[in-house]
């Protein structure tokens, strides 16, 4: 039996591919075929396929965004055959919450992440400041301005700017949560005309203008990673997985100088961090559900963590999925950012992401089918504001119009 697995091309997934000998040794009658694609293409591919019932895949790598939507359409098989030793209860509750519907798990998390602040201890010291474990945006802005030294090619803060629902909008939506903003009110009325959003965007644009790198409007995760690794950023707020890259001396010139803190807040009760998990789901149409479940169980089970640890060391274990991992002293030793990561994850709640109530699920996204397109449109407008090509007010007005339009069309606004 051959099962076809669609995965995203990030390091952890690629590593899993290399380790599948272990799985095939245990399940000699199952062969694995891999389709590795970059994130956006992968999402298009699997969505087209599942929505048209193309039946090309037996296991799909999907994010927290897709799971609730697909589960609602009953496109995914509930994962109830993962085996006795799977220990679903061990999955970090915040993560599991985002992957479940009606109490059933529809996708098994392969790795999970939140976002937090990574900063340069040396530069912070030079600026005469000390980073608290839970900073406020005010502090961050102040520190960023103080750390900025354009002559030495050091920018106080690096943030995402590239347009896209999973790029700048992931960051900005999470950030807006901490400013008390929300995408929609309970009647699905878009909220970009509210002061909270104005505060968020104005703060972001001003901060980046004064303390951000040039070309920020086309920077995504990778660009910022490279900047930080080369010592060009004082702070960087991004995915928790980045910690293992910036602290890796092989790639990073600042590996020994990195400190971590929770994402900032404004004291309203929500922090500006997100929650995301790449998970393995099984499409409802597959003929090979049993084999697929076996694979999912293997790839997301505890055994896999041990396998990676034994082969490549604890630092390379996929993070963010299991509480037991964070209780493991060996892991804590190998990953100094472990605690901060777990705290970050736990401080996000996809079911109650914002200060004010909202009708949707998702921290840095809105789990409705229309969000990808709408998010990208809004992302484009916001990146234009960042690039200085339009004002913050215009960007917000544009976002509001586009949202009302889209939501009306989709029938949310009656």
């Amino acid at each position: 039996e051959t099962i076809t697995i669609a995965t995203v091309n990030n390091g952890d997934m690629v590593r899993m591919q290399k380790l599948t000998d272990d799985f095939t040794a245990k399940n000699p009658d199952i062969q694995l075929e891999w389709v590795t694609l970059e994130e956006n293409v992968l999402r298009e591919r699997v969505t087209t396929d599942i929505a048209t019932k193309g039946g090309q895949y037996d296991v799909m790598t999907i994010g927290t965004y897709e799971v609730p939507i697909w589960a609602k359409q009953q496109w995914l098989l509930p994962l109830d055959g993962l085996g006795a030793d799977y220990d679903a209860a061990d999955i970090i509750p915040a993560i599991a919450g985002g992957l479940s519907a009606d109490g059933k798990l529809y996708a098994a998390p392969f790795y999970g992440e939140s976002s937090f602040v990574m900063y340069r201890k040396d530069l912070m010291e030079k600026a005469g400041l000390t980073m608290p474990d839970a900073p406020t945006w005010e502090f961050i802005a102040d520190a960023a301005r103080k750390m900025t030294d354009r002559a030495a090619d050091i920018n106080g803060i690096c943030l995402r700017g590239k347009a896209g629902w999973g790029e700048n909008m992931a960051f900005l939506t999470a950030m807006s949560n901490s400013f008390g903003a929300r995408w929609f009110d309970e009647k699905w009325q878009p909220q970009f005309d509210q002061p909270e959003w104005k505060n968020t965007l104005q703060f972001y644009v001003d901060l980046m203008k004064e303390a951000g790198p040039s070309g920020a409007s086309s920077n995504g995760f990778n660009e910022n990673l490279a900047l930080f690794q080369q010592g060009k950023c004082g702070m960087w707020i991004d995915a928790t997985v980045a910690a293992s890259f910036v602290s890796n001396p092989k790639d990073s010139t600042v590996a020994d100088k990195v400190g971590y803190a929770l994402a900032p807040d404004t004291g309203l009760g929500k922090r500006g961090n997100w929650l995301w998990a790449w998970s393995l789901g099984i499409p409802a149409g597959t003929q090979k559900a049993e084999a697929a479940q076996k694979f999912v169980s293997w790839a997301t089970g505890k055994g896999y963590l041990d396998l990676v640890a034994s082969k490549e060391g604890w630092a390379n274990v996929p993070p963010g999925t299991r509480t037991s991992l964070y209780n493991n002293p060996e892991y804590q030793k190998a990953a100094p950012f472990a605690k901060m990561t777990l705290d970050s994850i736990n401080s996000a709640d996809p079911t109650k992401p914002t200060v004010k109530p909202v009708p949707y699920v998702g921290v840095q996204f809105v789990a409705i089918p229309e969000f990808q397109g709408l998010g990208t449109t809004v992302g484009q407008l916001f990146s234009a504001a960042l690039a200085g090509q339009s004002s913050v007010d215009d960007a917000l007005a544009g976002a509001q119009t586009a949202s009302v339009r889209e939501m009306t069309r989709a029938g949310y606004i009656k």
Partner: protein
Amino acid sequence: MARAVSTRRKIGFTVAAWVVALLIFFPILYTIITSFKSETEAIAGFSLVPSGTLESYAEVQAQSNYFKFFLNSVIIAVGSTILALVVAVPAAWSMAFSPTKRTKDILMWMLSTKMMPAVAVLVPIYLIFRDTYLLDTRIGLTVMLMLINLPIVVWMLYTYFREIPGEILEAARMDGATLWGEIVYVLTPMAVPGIASTMLLNIILAWNEAFWTIRLTTTNAAPLTAFIASFSSPQGLFWAKLSAASTLAIAPILIMGWFSQRQLVRGLTFGAVK
């Protein structure tokens, strides 16, 4: 015009041409150079001297089976080209040697079929492919690319054929050749340069087609465009690896293009000569 060109002038042109050529080639050259760097080197600023490490290639090969993608690319590109020729040669023959008032319009219409944005028809096509069990099959993709490039093939062949004197075909007819004989023994061999360059262009276009080849395949039929899609923008540093993958993806067609450069130059004129 066979007057002596002074060596100084020639050197001048040589320098100018080389500078321009290297500028144009630079992005490719730099990609190749970068593929021999380590990841940290790759972002460490401008440098034309790589450390010569093969680690990126090793990683690329470890991550995916290059050869399988390569083979699919070859099969799909060559297959669709041959298929297109088989269909297009007779059509071009009719247009060139038995033109009617509507020949030009038909040609234009054929070209206009290329104007439908691919994204807009993805869902319909995906549904069709699903229902005909052609998803992720080489044959499906081959037919698809054949259809996409058919208009260009017909047009190119038509312009070549038009330059073949009709009298030669008439001579064959007088010599007792059937239509089949006429096309196989006379027309096709005579049009070999044109057909060759049409083939080349079509292979290049098919090789580089990156929308359908990714969207309609999963594992069995995925060509090098899908291979590239698995290397662009993952998390982490990836430029050296991306360069290595890019180099691997374009190398075969680049080398083929270099070797057949002369053919291509002759062929790409679409009868622009005369």
